[in-house]
């Protein structure tokens, strides 16, 4: 027993130094040298200023000139994260879906005549798990393309092209689902407009 106590005490100090200090610090050092951008959050800079991360979605609500991300329980907070946590038979959740569906149809229906609930992809009205899902589905993006083309005065074909360019595919064409990166897409639409203006 006494021997166990002594060995256990030494073991805990030893493993704390090796696994709790050396391992994470060495991993940090190697990561910072090999993958400086990825290890620090894959940040996107515009004119030398950080405007976001490739991997973290942002809130574009109320701005019709931008593609809209998925609903978020946290308002796209990337420093206080939590799930929506409402159950599958929750009345409040059902009412939330109905409101989101209505908002979506009103917002996009102006630019896509005949748009009905049957055309709206599920990701457009459900909250993501992380609250900062950077992606929307391709179907969702293609519907929103009509609005962006009209508001930004861009050809629809060009907007659809941009969507394809900013779709992250599956891993080896098999694992995961394709998603359109909303922040990157919006940054590109801004840039595209800039180019058009200077042509």
């Amino acid at each position, binding site marked *: 027993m006494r021997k166990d106590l*002594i060995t256990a005490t030494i073991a805990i100090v030893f493993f704390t130094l090796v696994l*709790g200090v050396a391992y994470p610090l060495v991993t940090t050092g190697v990561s910072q040298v090999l993958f400086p951008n*990825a290890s620090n*959050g894959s940040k996107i800079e515009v004119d030398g200023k950080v*405007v976001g991360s490739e991997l973290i979605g942002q809130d574009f609500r109320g701005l019709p000139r931008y593609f809209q991300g998925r609903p978020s329980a946290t308002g796209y907070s990337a420093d*206080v994260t939590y799930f929506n946590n*409402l*159950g599958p038979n929750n009345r409040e959740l059902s009412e939330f879906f109905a409101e989101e569906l209505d908002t979506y149809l009103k917002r996009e229906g102006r630019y896509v005549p005949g748009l009905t609930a049957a055309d709206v992809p599920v990701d457009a009205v459900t909250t993501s*798990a992380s609250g900062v899902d950077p992606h929307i589905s391709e179907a969702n993006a293609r519907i929103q393309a009509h609005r962006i083309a009209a508001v930004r005065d861009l050809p629809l074909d060009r907007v659809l092209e941009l969507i394809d360019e900013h779709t992250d595919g599956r891993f080896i064409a098999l694992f995961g689902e394709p998603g359109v990166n909303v922040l990157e897409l919006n940054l590109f639409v801004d840039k595209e407009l800039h180019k058009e203006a200077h042509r």
Partner: protein
Amino acid sequence: MIQGWAQIVAFLVVLTALVPLLGGYIAKVFQGERVFLSPVVGPVERFAYRVLRVRPDEGQDWKGYARSIVVFSLLSWLALYLILRTQSVQPFNPEGFHSGPWNLSFNTASSFVTNTNWQYYGGETTLTYFAQMAGLTVQNFVSAAVGIAALAAVIRGFAARSGAALGNFWSDLVRIVFYILLPISFLAALVLVSQGVIQTLDGSQTFHTIAGGAQTLALGPVASQEAIKELGTNGGGFFNVNSAMPFENPSGLTNFVELLLILIVPASLTYTFGRMIGNRRQGWALYAAMMAMFVVGVAVVYLAEQHGSPAQHHAGVLTHAFDGSTGGNMEGKEQRFGIAESSLWTAVTTVTSCGAVNAAFDSLTGIGGLVPAANLSTGEVIFGGVGSGLYYMLLFVLLTVFIAGLMVGRTPEFLGKKIESREVKLVLVGVLVTPLLVLFATAWAVASPDGTQSIYNPGPQGFSESLYAYLSQANNNGSAFAGYTGFVQPDAPGNAGAYGYDFANLLGGLVMLFARFLPMIAALATGGSLAGKKVAPAGAGTFRADSPTFVVLLIGVVVIAAALTFFPAFLLGPVVQGLTDQLF
């Protein structure tokens, strides 16, 4: 859905192909043989023995082995509790966090020492980087190593031809950490970083967005913790939303890697077992039984989630898949994972005792949520936790052998060793402790106002949350129907004004501790009891445990034991929700 099924099948094929490779390697590590890492790790191993002052060849009987485990875990608990209580004075604390309430620290320390990683706290809003690294990451390693070491000892007992020694705990601990867990974690962490998982000591960063608002990115040493969190079937997220957070799991690639990390050790250990007892067929038989139960779970949760939820259908949301949209219940799921990868993860993380999530369990459909609960109710024997899953399954194997023996009227034996009264009693203790703890804790939690204050959702979902909370903690899993609350954090910096619920934190903490160590000790005692038994040669009347008949029988025993215990409870929660379209 074909694409979805293809993802699931491809994952299982890759997993199965890796099982003999890692399983054989682990067997060599258990037996102290030379492996390809020996030239590098050997000196470290010998240095560790000198520091710890242990002689690796000094065998311990089951009592000595169990005592070392208990003492080590107890002191680990104290060390972790101390770290969680002293956050204000720690280095690597860029956000200036203070410690949370003591009852929360009690729960968290119990949670990480028992390989559970149940989390009432949110990591990025309450913990210093020091606590995450020197506290939680360390326990992620050593609590996993304790489980694997206990299994190594139990297997030695099953395989022994004579004597009572089950190996040396300290040398098992050192070897498992340095030959298995640390090298794989380090490599996996770098792979994850290359794909966007963060690894930095910088504090959070705030910037202006192009939409005219502001966003703050919480940062930290995530990848180093992420790798061992999956590999050791721990599951405690650096972020509150766990592996749904893009900084923990940014793509289809990382999701695949992390799924593999979760299952690879528990799955490979079946092969290790087969090798060490000198009957590989027996290892594959256990693998087959586990895989069969696992596949059924994946299929059910995938079909249920693809169907969508009543909340969606009532709101007029169309849940069919069509070109460019996954369809299904995407509430609480990430677009990059969709329905298939979220469903696969849900099953993987609950058959193992990992508990990391990439989707919100509280928002699963009724039947979709029944699957993780059912997986837990087996006692985590479908692959299960690293080490703990297999030693628990071996108890079920003995139970099956015993029942089969009763049916045919022969003395039950396994691997040529007679299973007698003492072993059967130990098996029953091991197998019954966990379900009893679950049922009593849940009953108390739903019958007392102290317990019900944790509930978030109205109606049957509130019951499901409570039941799942104690299923998860007792089976050392750690996943949650996360609306269930044990910690309230006002919108104030540095944990100021935060408080925890005594009932949820203390009951949960105690359940985790008892449900971890009592079955472990019972398994070790069983191994010790079998170690000294003579091996009788197999005769014509021997009931072979490596046959398909036995696999079916074993599955039957596991499923029936779980169903007899939990069926009524499941009816009240997930089943009701799965059968009704009504809203609550």
